[in-house]
């Protein structure tokens, strides 16, 4: 899938729409983030699962600090409170 910036889309709308008319899907980036998809009118609109998860996978690959799973943290706190109550 090709990527265009919102500026390119604004300045070259006809060229982008011609690409889409020929069957090309375009991902529109604004402020460095994928904001929209342009797809041919006769194509299924739903993005593929890979497209949905592309940002998640990119962020994961970049690494960075990890967080504790908040669902587990909440359960752990509840269990500790319950255990303290039983003591």
């Amino acid at each position, binding site marked *: 899938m090709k990527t265009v910036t919102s500026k390119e889309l604004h300045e070259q709308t006809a060229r982008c729409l011609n690409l889409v008319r020929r069957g090309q899907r375009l991902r529109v980036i604004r402020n460095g983030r994928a904001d929209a998809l342009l797809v041919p009118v006769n194509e299924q609109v739903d993005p593929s699962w890979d497209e949905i998860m592309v*940002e*998640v996978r990119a*962020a994961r690959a970049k690494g960075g600090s990890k*967080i504790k799973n*908040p669902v587990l943290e909440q359960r752990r706190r509840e269990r500790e409170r319950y*255990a303290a109550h039983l003591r």
Partner: protein
Amino acid sequence: MPLIYADTSTLFAYFHPGDSFSETVDAAVAQHSPDFAYWPLLRFELRHNLRRLQSTPHGGVAWRALRAAENTSARLRWQNDLATARVIESAEELSAKHGDDIFCGSGDVLHVAAARRLKLLAEFDEFWTCDDLQAKFARACGLKTRLFK
């Protein structure tokens, strides 16, 4: 595609790239390409936990991915037959039967009860969780269970 009941802890880890279980869960999804059972309790708990983090960079990524996933018919399979009242009744039965032995909270029991209902109603393959006590409980309730560590 296998149908998995993924506890909220697992779905959170799948969507949130900074979660400590994120890579492990993603690897399992890549290996098995499952569909995930989805119903109101799971949706609420998942949205609630992601919503609270959506102002953070990773949280924003996760939130957008979840909403995009909910807008498609792919992978998150809505379970119309999982009636909340029946799941709560089933959870009550499980609590009465196992509650003294296994140290689970009411929310954790509800997910196991929902997975058991799903097993009765539809094709169901596995229960996935990152919660060791819930995994123990799910196994005691007869569910084939995968625990992420």
